[in-house]
């Protein structure tokens, strides 16, 4: 008799409640792959890239009946509103499917938006549960929606390309979570990878397709964008932050022949920042360690006999100079503490930090930064000396 009671207990809710509540079939969901946030005439312009599953070429979808934009696998929707969420909400107004942000893997901040300050506007990225804290953040040089509109034929959608590039840019790419941490920590400023559009091949080669390209770092002070580091400076800054992913370094060995050089890839990079306080004089040591591997050698240098010592020395010089330059650009020109000097100081001299933290950004250009690098070349690759150069023409100095 217990079964007699159980059967309606099972069937009744299923019959009465089918179609209620949160049930949404996959074909009624619009998956947002990427969004961009821009400032457009004083309003927030939010642009979403939505996947079109029908043109993704799944089995049974036979040529894609619902594709609206030709062969494209995505649909772009853009709206302006005073806040990002309101913009998203008005986007839903002209979509027949329910927007789902849980698969947004990358979000782009436009240049204007970043300059105007992101602090207040990023609230929705963490408040609304569909928005993942692991979403990567990228900056665009110019408006962010331009990045979303590239062809990117190598991936299913531009969002995927942007995401993969972001992953390759840093060891720990900037995500909503790490952005929030940085914004809320005193003594460190944001540095977000910058991307811009680029043709795959120059006009003279042929008709290319537009792609996305990494181009340095956007440097923030508090929550506002204040400047950029170039690709080279960005690479060096990331070395100093311990974030660089296998950076490649090209050095010249002989000053007389600047066109000849050695390219080295650096693995196992690590960096340490150590603050020093002498009186009221604040200085920092940045120590970079890495192991290297020669990728290319266009010189006549006899590596075998010098045991790569010269190349190693040149690399160290190059890295030291490069980091110094990046530091100068960031902390002196832009007064932005992207390396977290303030945090390092706070950790070691909390009393001193308490005194100066309010004026930190004014003091920052005055601090002294000493860079040292310890690079060890471990391998010359598959060959030792350049295999196109006869032995008797090798130079040995």
């Amino acid at each position, binding site marked *: 008799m217990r079964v007699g009671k159980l059967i309606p207990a099972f069937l009744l809710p299923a019959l009465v409640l*089918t179609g209620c509540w949160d049930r949404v079939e996959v074909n009624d969901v619009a998956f947002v792959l990427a969004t961009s946030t821009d400032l457009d005439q004083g309003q927030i312009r939010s642009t979403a890239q939505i996947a079109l599953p029908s043109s*993704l070429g*799944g089995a049974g*979808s036979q040529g*894609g009946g619902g594709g609206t934009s030709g062969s494209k696998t995505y649909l772009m929707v853009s709206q302006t509103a005073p806040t990002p969420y309101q913009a998203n909400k008005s986007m839903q107004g002209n979509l027949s499917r329910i927007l789902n942000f849980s698969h947004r893997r990358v979000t782009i901040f436009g240049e204007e938006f970043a300059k105007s300050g992101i602090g207040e506007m990023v609230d929705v990225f963490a408040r609304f549960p569909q928005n993942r804290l692991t979403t990567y953040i990228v900056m665009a040089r110019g408006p962010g929606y331009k990045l979303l509109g590239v062809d990117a034929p190598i991936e299913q959608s531009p969002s995927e390309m942007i995401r993969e590039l972001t992953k390759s840019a840093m060891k720990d790419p900037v995500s909503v979570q790490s952005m929030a941490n940085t914004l809320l920590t005193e003594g460190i400023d944001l540095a977000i990878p910058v991307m811009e559009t680029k043709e795959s091949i120059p006009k003279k080669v042929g008709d290319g397709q537009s792609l996305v390209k990494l181009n340095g770092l956007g440097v923030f002070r508090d929550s506002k964008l204040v400047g950029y580091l170039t690709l080279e400076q960005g690479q060096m800054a990331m070395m100093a932050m311990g974030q660089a992913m296998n950076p490649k370094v090209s050095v010249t060995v002989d000053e007389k022949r600047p066109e000849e050089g050695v390219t080295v890839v650096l693995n196992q990079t690590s960096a340490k920042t150590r603050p020093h306080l002498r009186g009221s004089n604040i200085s920092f040591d940045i120590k970079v360690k890495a192991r290297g591997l020669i990728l290319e050698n266009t010189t006549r240098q006899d590596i075998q006999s010098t045991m790569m010592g010269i190349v190693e020395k040149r690399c160290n010089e190059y890295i030291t100079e490069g980091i110094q330059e990046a530091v100068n650009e960031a902390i002196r020109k832009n007064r932005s503490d992207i390396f977290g000097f303030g945090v390092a100081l706070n950790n070691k001299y909390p009393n001193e930090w308490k005194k100066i933290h309010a004026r930190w950004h004014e003091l920052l250009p005055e601090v002294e930064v000493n860079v040292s690098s310890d690079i060890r070349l471990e391998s010359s690759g598959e060959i030792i000396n350049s295999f196109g150069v006869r032995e008797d023409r090798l130079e040995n100095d």
Partner: protein
Amino acid sequence: MKTKERKQEDKINRDLAENIKQVKKVFQDCSDVIYREIQLSEHIQGLLVYIEGIIKVEDVQQHILRPLIEGLAQHPQADGEIYPLSFTRVSLSQAQSATDWPAVINGVLTANVAIFVEGMDEVLLFSVKGGSRRSVTEPQTEAVIRGPREGFTESLRINTALIRFKIKTEKLKLLDMVIGKVTKTDVALAYIEGLAEENLIADVKERLENIDIDGILESGYIEEWIEDNPSSPFPQMQYSERPDSVAAQLLEGRVAIFVDGTPFVLIAPVTLWQLLQASEDYYERFFISNMIRWIRFFFLFLALFLPSLYIAVTTFHQDMLPSTLILSIAASREAIPFPALVEAFIMEISFEALREAGIRLPKTVGQAVSILGALVIGQAAVQAGIVSAPMVIVVSLTGIASFTVPRFGLAVTVRMLRFPIMLLASAFGLFGIVIGAVWIVVHLTQLKSFGVPYMNGIAPYVPEDTKDIFSRVPMWKMKKRPSDASRANMQRIGKSRPLGSDSNEGW
């Protein structure tokens, strides 16, 4: 036997002619009953009655007819001396006599030869069981790679003999019973004295004696009649057609119920874990057994929950899947006209139908049906856009998973239970699956099989028993019998083998 007062006409008459008349009246229109009149001595006539087909004709000829006829020639004067006849002349081992008609008729029906003798109110009954029965062959339903290849047959005595071959102890007891008012089926309750609990034996015996039914044609009749909770979908007795399985269960202190006419022997009590153990688990080395057992547990979970998980995730929790996976599911579902639940139901039900059709049809046609079904369900349905490809994968995986459950009874239960869970999943998402799972677990913890908790070992937790639940420890580590059946005599291994290598280097 019934002890009610017998009427006078139930008694055997001294007059042979009267008896012949009576027996022919009883077996009127029974064309398989044979009457053979013989001359026992010069003055005494007799009648042999037996049923053709169920007795061994050679035995009748060799050991009854021939000695009687030859004996007539040798002792023509033995008038009225009937007992020398039964004990000296007829060379058959099982003999008895009866004085009333019901006993005689029953004897004839259970493969005895009845001898009526002129002037005697007793009928001699000689058991000559015979007739053609299937011989011992490999079991069809429980195939193994490594293990004995013999299976039970339809004959009770062959079956009990197969157990005797394996367990050579006088402690192996077989209690005979006859159940079924019309079929009079022989049923034997087997147990090992000292291993099986007294209470259990008494309980099973009492339940068997309470069965009041016209016929027992399969052990399933008995199972349904004596199980603890008839409204539970879970099997509360195990059945097996493998003598080694039954012997192993007897050795663990359980009881077995043999039923004449079926190769399936019932085993009680049972736990859920027992239904997930295959006999091969103990024949392969324990590494292999453990791996296979874990796969089995994992696939049991899949068989129960996979379609519901698919429904729940695709209709409620799209956030849960990796982006690329949900996009490819979305792509393949784009053109599908049905909601995920309906899609799943169409596929699951047609899969069940396909399996049923495959079993029922003659072997030659069965092949065609499965090919056709695989083609229709797998290929055409996807190409026509009726069903999405991920759903086909889910349904086939579920189908495979349900075949990994070693006991068919449990596999059917799992297949059945996944439908209500699918409904729950479609109404409440993962929450519904949790409701379903909780309901099942609550039910399982309440369920008992002959007084033993169904999840014994885990609920209630018995540390000793976990050696053979989720893992199977090496044979020499299973020092005690499982606690569910034999509480009295737990020790199974006297002295364990020494650890380490046995190789004797430098011999």
